[in-house]
């Protein structure tokens, strides 16, 4: 059985220090939900509150309609995968995997059968009689996953499960986790600080900062329409430009450039902040439209070329990414013009807290 997890007004304090002040979130049945944020943002804390390793200072946690606030860890029926795998070093691979089943008073045949099934599913059946120290990092990770899943948990919790693996293995295991999660069909809460990993693996992502959820949404949504400046800068790269908005004719004016934006929820004239991703600038030299700037540096990175450009009107530097062309790179010191793909940019309030696009 899989469940949806409802968290209402969660509060976490360590002594006087409040780590999480008020988080509410509804994690749907069978979805892979990621808590993403910089270190210290409270994502692991929240995960451990769901697991029952951290006490809950306020709010309510539900699996379906069952409140779990005071339930023992061992009664919650969760599968957990830890950053360091937490494989029992004194037990063999098989003993690790069947550990949870043995706590459930099942018959020997069932235990054997289920253990075999998951050992095979995770492709570690051939290592079943080895001790963990004889396994590689990726294999240990598979054991951890098998051990967590074999008990048919209501919820799977994963705390930065890939951060101890090398880059190649990380990509491979990412796919394994994604596939298994879909195959078993289990509500999963996944914690990471790696935005690319989060985007690749998640159904939905909650971006957290300083104990507050900044944005919940599908990967495309948080990338293209981030709810505030923090999300826009944390997910991918972006350039922030000061601009003004005139609400009578719906015109955004930035430097010497201006254009209309029809889709903003603003009813007055005010300063705004534009978030323009590096790929949303169009660089041209000929028709002299857009923001004037001077090339300060450029890097050829294969598919793309990155250019650092100093804007003439306020001396701010921005980053521009273009598909690499066969011609030579632009010269340093050369004057260029930047047009903005206005349908892709985001317009924030001057303090960066609100996205006006609606």
């Amino acid at each position, binding site marked *: 059985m899989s469940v949806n997890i409802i968290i209402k007004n969660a509060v976490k304090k360590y002594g006087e220090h409040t780590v999480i002040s008020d988080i509410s979130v509804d994690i749907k049945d069978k979805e892979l939900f990621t808590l993403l944020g910089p270190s210290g943002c409270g994502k692991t804390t929240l995960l451990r509150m769901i*697991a*029952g*390793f951290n006490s809950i200072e306020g709010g309510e946690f539900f699996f379906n309609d069952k409140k779990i606030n*005071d*339930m*023992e*860890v*061992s*009664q*919650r*029926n*969760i*599968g*957990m995968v*830890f*950053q*360091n795998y*937490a*494989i*029992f*070093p*004194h037990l063999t691979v098989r003993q690790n995997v069947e*550990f*949870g089943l043995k*706590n*459930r008073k099942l018959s020997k045949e069932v235990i054997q059968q289920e253990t075999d099934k998951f050992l095979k599913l995770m492709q570690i059946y051939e290592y079943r009689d080895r001790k963990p120290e004889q396994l590689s990092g990726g294999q240990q990770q598979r054991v*951890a996953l098998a*051990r*967590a899943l074999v*008990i048919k948990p209501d919820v799977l*919790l994963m705390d930065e499960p890939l951060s101890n693996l090398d880059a190649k293995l990380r990509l491979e295991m990412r796919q394994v986790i994604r596939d298994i999660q879909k195959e078993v069909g289990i509500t999963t809460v996944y914690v990471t600080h790696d935005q690319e990993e989060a985007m690749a693996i998640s159904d939905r992502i909650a971006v957290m900062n300083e104990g507050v959820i900044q944005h919940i949404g599908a990967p495309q949504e948080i990338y293209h329409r981030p709810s505030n400046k923090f999300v826009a800068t944390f997910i991918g790269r972006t350039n922030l430009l000061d601009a003004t908005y005139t609400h009578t004719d719906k015109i955004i004016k930035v430097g010497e450039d201006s254009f209309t934006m029809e889709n903003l929820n603003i009813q007055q004239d005010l300063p705004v902040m534009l978030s323009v991703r590096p790929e949303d600038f169009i660089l041209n030299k000929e028709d002299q439209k857009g923001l004037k700037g001077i090339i300060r540096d450029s890097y050829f990175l294969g598919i793309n070329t990155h250019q650092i450009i100093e804007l003439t009107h306020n001396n701010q530097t921005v980053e521009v990414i273009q598909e690499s062309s066969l011609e030579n790179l632009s010269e340093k010191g050369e004057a260029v013009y930047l047009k903005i793909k206005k349908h892709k940019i985001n317009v924030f309030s001057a303090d960066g807290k609100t996205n006006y696009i609606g």
Partner: protein
Amino acid sequence: MKKNKFDLWGSIKIIMLGLYGIFLIYPLINLLAQALVDKDTGQLTLTYFVKFFSVPYYFNTLLNSFKVTFCVTILTVILATPLAYIFTRYNIYGKSVLRILIILSSMSAPFIGAYSWILLLGRSGVITQFFKNIIGITIPNIYGFVGILLVLTLQLYPLIFLYVSGALKNVDNSLLEASENLGTSGVKRFFLVITPLIMPTLLAGGLLVFMRALADFGTPMLIGEGFRTFPVTIFNEFISEMGGDDGFASAISIIAIIITTIVFLLQKYFSTRKSFTMSSINKIRPVDTKGFKKFLIHFYSYGLVSISIMPQIYIFYTSFKNTNGTTFAPGYSFNSYIAVFDRVGKVIVNTMTIPATALVFIIGLAVLVAYITVRRPGFFSNVLDTVSMVPYIIPGSVLGIALLIAFNKPPIYLSGTMMIMVIALIIRRLPYTIRSSVAILQQIPMNVEEAALSLGSSKMKTFYRITMPMMAAGIISGAILSWITMISELSTAILLYTGRTKTLTIEIYTQIIRGNYGIAAALATILAVLTTISLLVFNKISGDDDLSL
């Protein structure tokens, strides 16, 4: 559910504190009362303390103890630090055998070393006679300060050696290369770079040596003669033929505790100021040497090890000599061993059962206390942690007296029982086992236990199915070390034993005092064999590397 869980560990905490209250705190408070209350009038009095400080005879024992302990500590550091450095940095022939010998030489009871040195260098010692009769040189007198210094230094330098070797393992070789790269190498580097790095360890090891040397009873008793140290005085005052003076013995004990406490706190103060964590990626690898340097390091290593193992080898040798009354006679036989088995079967049984019983409790209690202090921190855990370290600064003979005075009358009457000896061993050895268990537990990631909980295992089950087995290897090797220490323990046992609870060390001591040298040598050899076997088992289990005492 939540309530229950608190109660389980909570009640274990209370029970542990209760046990410490009865068997440690109460005897110590009682000891203080004995020292401060006049027996006849029931009035508070400082008479005993005044007596101690006003009569030079007593006060001097304190000065003597200090003098010899301080010198021993310095000397062990001076001898052992270069040895550990040589062992880490250079290749030496037969290094692993030397290591075993170094450890072995520290494992016997110090008074056996003292006794053997008397046989070698005493008034009628073999070496003394040799020089006197053949060469005509009179070797300086070994009795007194010099003798104690010699015996305790050779006995205790292995502690520093082991501590420093451990610390050097954590020194990254890049640090040495960096200093060489910056123009500091050789001896200069040893003092400017390595010494500061191992300073916290030197302080910790030095404290241990200081405590052991200060509390040692058997060595000054045998070889000290006129040079009286205060464990001897405490013993004499307590077990005087004229009817011992409990009050005065208690007062000296209190003074001893105050001194050890001050030393302990000073050490703590300096070592926390100098402490830092190290971990090495590139360990120092031993390299080959050539020429004079090669000769020098071999000469130093082999010389020091030979001298320190000599007493044991000589005891072993004399155990096969024929004896005639209290003197050795020409010829060799197993007569001493035959005499031993006729007379002291019971003693050997005691030597096994008393420490074994204590060991069971020590392991159980240490694991619980370690678990509580590491995994369930809180006010009571802190209290427990502090209280459990108290025995560290109580000299063995002081603890013996405290237990005797406290439990020689109802409601708890224990004097003369085996139980009081077991309790004494538990109290004395527990701090070490707790420390090592804490260290082991701190290395086990909390996650592993959490994983077990998340898989539906209860807290108790997690503890004995996951935590305990993971700690097992470390605990067993710690237990073997405790075992070795306990079977050669003298200073507490000498106060607590009766005819029925005599152990090997006491029997050896008594036989030496009575002059039955053959029997004493045979018994000491048996003890050494026991120790060696235990040590080999330890090596097998721990893989030789992490020996700490």
